[in-house]
C-alpha cells in the first residue's frame, strides 16, 4: 500500500490499522454517524444511507479518478471544468444535432478521453508541471463550455428513461447511481491495488526516474491515468445532467477542489507514492455524511464547509504527529 516503510510498520496488526490514516478516518466516520444518529431526523434509516451515496456520486467519481493521478505525483485541476464542457456537448449533441442519447453519451466520453489526452501529452511530452497544465485546461474547458452556450444556454427536457440514471431507484429503494458508482470504485480499486500497472503508479509517484530505470513505461502510465480521469469526468457530467435534469456550462464548478479534499483527507499524499481507493472512499463519505447530517439536523450548511477545512488540516497534522511520535519510539528501541 505504501511505497516507503513507515515507522509504524513493526507494530502489531490491530494497532497499525487503528493508527493508520485510514483507521483514524474510519473512526471519525463512525463518530459522525453516531452523533448524527442522535441529533438528526431520519438519519439512521436505509433511505438516508442510500441518499448519501447518491449525493456523493458525482464528486466521488472525480475523487476516484484523481486518486491514481495524485499517487503518481501529479494533479488534475481540470476535471470540474471538463464536466461543464462535457455536459454542454452532451446537451448540444442531443438537442441540436439530434443524436440519440446513447450515441451522444459515447461521443461525450470520447471528448473526455481527448481532453485527458491533451493534459497527458502536455505533461509527458513537454514536461510541464501538471498543476500548470491543468490550470490552463481548467480555464480552457470551462471557457469552451461558456463560449458554446453563450454562457446562458441550458439543455433540458431529457426523456424520463435518461433521467432514471440520476434520479431513479431500482426496486424503489436503491438509487440508480449506486451500482454505477460501485462499479467504477471497484474498477479503480482493482487497477490500483491488484495490478502491476497500479504498483507502477506508486513507484512513479515515489520517483519517476527510479521507476523508469526499473523498466516502467512512465509516460504511458501517466498518460493512462489522465486519460481515465478525462473519461470519468465526462461520465460524471452525464450523471450530473441526469441527476439535475439540465445541462449548463457551470456544471461541476468547484468540484475538482472538493474531490481533491476527499482524496487528501483519505490519506493520499499530495506528493505522490501513497494512498488507497478505500481511503478516498472514506474521505468522501466523511465529507458527505457531514453535509447530510447537518442538513438533517437543521444545521447551517456552511458549518459543513468549515468543518471539512478544519478536518483536512487536523487529519494531516495528526498524521504527521503520529508518524513523528512513532519514529521517536522505534528509534528509542521500544
Amino acid at each position: 500500500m505504501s511505497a516507503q516503510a513507515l515507522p509504524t510498520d513493526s507494530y502489531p496488526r490491530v494497532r497499525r490499522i487503528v493508527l493508520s490514516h485510514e483507521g483514524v478516518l474510519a473512526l471519525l466516520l463512525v463518530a459522525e454517524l453516531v452523533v448524527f444518529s442522535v441529533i438528526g431526523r431520519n438519519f439512521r434509516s436505509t433511505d438516508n444511507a442510500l441518499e448519501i451515496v447518491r449525493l456523493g456520486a458525482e464528486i466521488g467519481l472525480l475523487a476516484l479518478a484523481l486518486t491514481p493521478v495524485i499517487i503518481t505525483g501529479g494533479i488534475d485541476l481540470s476535471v470540474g471544468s471538463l464536466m461543464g464542457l462535457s455536459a454542454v456537448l452532451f446537451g448540444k449533441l442531443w438537442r441540436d444535432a439530434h443524436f440519440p442519447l446513447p450515441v451522444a453519451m459515447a461521443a461525450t466520453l470520447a471528448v473526455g478521453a481527448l481532453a485527458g489526452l491533451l493534459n497527458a501529452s502536455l505533461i509527458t511530452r513537454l514536461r510541464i508541471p501538471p498543476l500548470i497544465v491543468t490550470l490552463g485546461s481548467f480555464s480552457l474547458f470551462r471557457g469552451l463550455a461558456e463560449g458554446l452556450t453563450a454562457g446562458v444556454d441550458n439543455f433540458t427536457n431529457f426523456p424520463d428513461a435518461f433521467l432514471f440514471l440520476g434520479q431513479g431507484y431500482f426496486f424503489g429503494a436503491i438509487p440508480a447511481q449506486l451500482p454505477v458508482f460501485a462499479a467504477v470504485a471497484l474498477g479503480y480499486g482493482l487497477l490500483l491495488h491488484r495490478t502491476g500497472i497500479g504498483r507502477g503508479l506508486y513507484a512513479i509517484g515515489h520517483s519517476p526516474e527510479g521507476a523508469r530505470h526499473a523498466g516502467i513505461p512512465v509516460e504511458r502510465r501517466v498518460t493512462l491515468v489522465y486519460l481515465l480521469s478525462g473519461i470519468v469526468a465526462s461520465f460524471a457530467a452525464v450523471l450530473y445532467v441526469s441527476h439535475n435534469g439540465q445541462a449548463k456550462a457551470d456544471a461541476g464548478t468547484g468540484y475538482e477542489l472538493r474531490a481533491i479534499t476527499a482524496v487528501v483527507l483519505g490519506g493520499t499524499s499530495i506528493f505522490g507514492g501513497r494512498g488507497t481507493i478505500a481511503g478516498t472512499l472514506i474521505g468522501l463519505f466523511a465529507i458527505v455524511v457531514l453535509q447530510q447530517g447537518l442538513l438533517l439536523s437543521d444545521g447551517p450548511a456552511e458549518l459543513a464547509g468549515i468543518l471539512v477545512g478544519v478536518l483536512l488540516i487536523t487529519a494531516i497534522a495528526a498524521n504527521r504527529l503520529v508518524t513523528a511520535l512513532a519514529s521517536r519510539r522505534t528509534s528509542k528501541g521500544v
Partner: protein
Amino acid sequence: MMRKHLREISVAGALLFLLLILLVRSPKFFDAANLRAVIVSDAPVIVAAIGMTLVILARQIDISIGSQFSICGMVAGLLAKQGVPTPVVALATLGTGALFGAINGALVAGLRIPSIVATLATMVTWREAMRWISEGQAVQNLPESFLWLGMSRPAGQALIVLSAFALLLLFAWGLRALPAGRAVYAVGSDAEAARLAGIRPPLVVFGVFVLMGVLTALSALLTAIQFRNVLPGEGAGLELKVIAACVVGGVAISGGRGTLPGALAGVLFLGTIGPALPFLGTQAYWEKALQGAIILIAVASDAINLRRRRDVGASLAH
C-alpha cells in the same frame, strides 16, 4: 539579458501586439474612459500578483487569497459603515490580511503541511465561515468618506493605480537588492542549500505568506473603495486569475525563477483580453477559453524552449 528575460519580453510583446490590433480595428478602446476603467480594474490584481510571485518564487502556492480578499473587503466595509476613520479601517484590514497570512504560514512552515493542501483547507474554511456570518448579504451604502478614500473619483483612481505600480517597483527592487529578497529565490531553488548557507527556510516561507496576506488585504481595500457596496464572495476566483498571470509572466511553479515585471506583464496581458473582446466584435463569453488557451501556449512554449536547453532528467511531478 534578452535570453534571460525571454518570457517577460514575449508577453510584453504579445500585449503590444494585442494593443496594435485594437488600434487598427477599434481605436475606441483607447478612449480615456475605457483605458481608465481597464487599468483601475487591473490595479488590485497587480497588487495581489506581487504577493503571489513571492509565494511561487519560494516554491509554494496560495489558493486561499480569494477567500481572504472577500473577508478583508467585508471587514473594511463593515468598519467603514460604523464610522471608523478611514486610516484605522485601512490598518485593520491589512492586519486581518496579515493574520490570515500568518495562519497559512504557520500551517506550511510550522506544521509542514504542503502549501496546496493547507491553503485549500483555509480557503474552504474561510469562505464558508464568511458565508455563514454574512448570509451572503452585501455591506451597502458605504459612507462618502470611505469611497475613493474621501477624494474625488479621478484622484482616487490615480491613487489606486500609482500605489500598485509603486509597490511593484518597491518589491522588484527588494527582490534584487535586499538579502531577504535573494533569500526568497534561494529557498525556492533549493531549500536545503539555502539552509546550509545560513538562511532559515521556515522563516522565509512564513514571511512570504504573511506578505501575501497583507497584499491581498490591500487589494481588497483598493477594490472596496471603488463601489458603494461591498459584495460577499467578491474575491472568488482571484487566486486562479493571479496564479495564471504569474505563470504566463514567467514565474516558474517549481520555484526560484521569475520576475515581478514578468508578473506585471502577465496581469496586463490577461487582464486586457476581457475588455478587448467587445471592441473586437467577439462575444465576451469566449474570454475564459482564450485565457486558458493562452496559459497553455505560454507554458508550452516555455517548456519547448527549456527542453532545447536542458536534458531530459526533469521530473514529471510538480
